[in-house]
């Protein structure tokens, strides 16, 4: 089972590296969008500092969502997805492999860039580790839930926009626990409950999202 998971993970990562401009574009969006906020809400360090965690998390959400079409769209268009569903390997495992590759290609770079945004938005010092830990625990769920959205919109008109409408409401719990974790840390409270909730969402997504996405893919390749 893990052989199949690693095979598709290796292939998708290879594709991501070979087409790394896609990743660079998403990261560019992440940074540029963050840079807009000081123009929007004013450069005052206190206001920026207070809303910095929210900005970073919301932009992380949007960045992950923007790159979701890389999950299945290309394979669906060139017929590879059809053949992938025809391999004896169980489809949910393959979806898990693709979601993992998507997370490594999108989630990790976001986590790496988050401190840079923190500095730009004057995030308080104590918040950095919690922001990073929260993103590390939250972005995999975003990729998994996003995989369901990407699979559901295969073949739909304007799949990108439609995916935003489907996926963003489902991202709200991850956003809330991620941001409140940082606020709690800054205010000196314990962040344990927040991370437990994020972990619970991740486990649930790991278990359920591949099944839902696999069912949607089987319908799309029919």
């Amino acid at each position, binding site marked *: 089972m893990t052989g199949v998971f690693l095979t*598709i993970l290796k292939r998708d990562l290879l594709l991501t590296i*070979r087409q790394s401009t896609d990743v660079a574009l998403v990261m560019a969006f992440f940074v540029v969008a963050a840079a807009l906020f000081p123009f929007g809400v004013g450069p005052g360090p206190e206001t920026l500092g207070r809303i910095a965690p929210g900005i970073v998390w919301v932009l992380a959400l949007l960045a992950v969502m923007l790159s979701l079409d890389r999950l299945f769209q*290309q394979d669906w268009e060139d*017929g590879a997805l059809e053949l992938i569903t*025809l*391999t*004896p390997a169980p489809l949910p495992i393959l979806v898990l492999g693709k979601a993992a590759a998507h997370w490594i290609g999108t989630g990790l770079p976001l986590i790496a860039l988050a401190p840079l945004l923190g500095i730009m938005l004057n995030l308080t010092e104590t918040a950095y580790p919690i922001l990073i830990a929260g993103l590390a625990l939250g972005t995999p769920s975003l990729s998994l839930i996003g995989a369901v959205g990407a699979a559901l919109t295969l073949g739909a008109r304007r799949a990108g926009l439609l995916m935003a409408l489907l996926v963003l409401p489902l991202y709200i719990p991850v956003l809330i626990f991620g941001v409140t974790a940082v606020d709690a840390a800054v205010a000196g409270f314990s962040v344990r409950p927040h991370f437990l909730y994020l972990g619970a969402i991740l486990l649930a997504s790991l278990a359920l999202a591949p099944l839902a996405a696999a069912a949607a893919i089987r319908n799309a390749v*029919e």
Partner: protein
Amino acid sequence: MSELTGQDLTCIRGERPVFARLNFAWTAGTACQLTGPNGAGKSSLLRVLAGLIQPAAGSLSWHGTPIDEDREAHRARVSYCGHQEALKSALTVREGLQFWADLGGLPNRVDAALEGFELTGLADTPARILSSGQKRRVALARLIVESRPIWLLDEPTVGLDKASQERLEHLIAAHRAEGGIVAAATHVPIALPDAKNLDMADFAPGRLRGQAA
């Protein structure tokens, strides 16, 4: 004792009935050529046989047991070559074939597949710069890598030059000799000695005429 049988297969795609009450029984070594006008359901039948489409009615069975009982086992028996070559432009030919080998075929068959279709020279070129004929040969090379009993080929000879077409015919003959089953939908006649014929026009939903070979 026939191996792959279809009883009263009916297929509806997007509310449109494509074929109805189609029966066939293929034993080891059989080749069957699907003919019929465009839109008669050749590709749909191949996709039903591959398990991509759920037949609206009727059943498909392997050695008597319906394939619905164990879909994964059925997928391990079938190699499907559709219209699209499913090549990733960023991967080289070898990497592409290695992926399919690792996913559901025999990992050490990649070199044999490359030789089978004279692709050894192109092994390390990215699929992006291949000609359509070369892409078709890479797609067909996957049959060797997966080496599964049932081959479902949808217009396999499109874009192939004479030499490649003959190579494909030899491959099919060898596969049948080993007891494999080949179902091919083609307009261009390919040499399939004593192959059965299945004219999809006989199974248009409106008309009911007799049993297929």
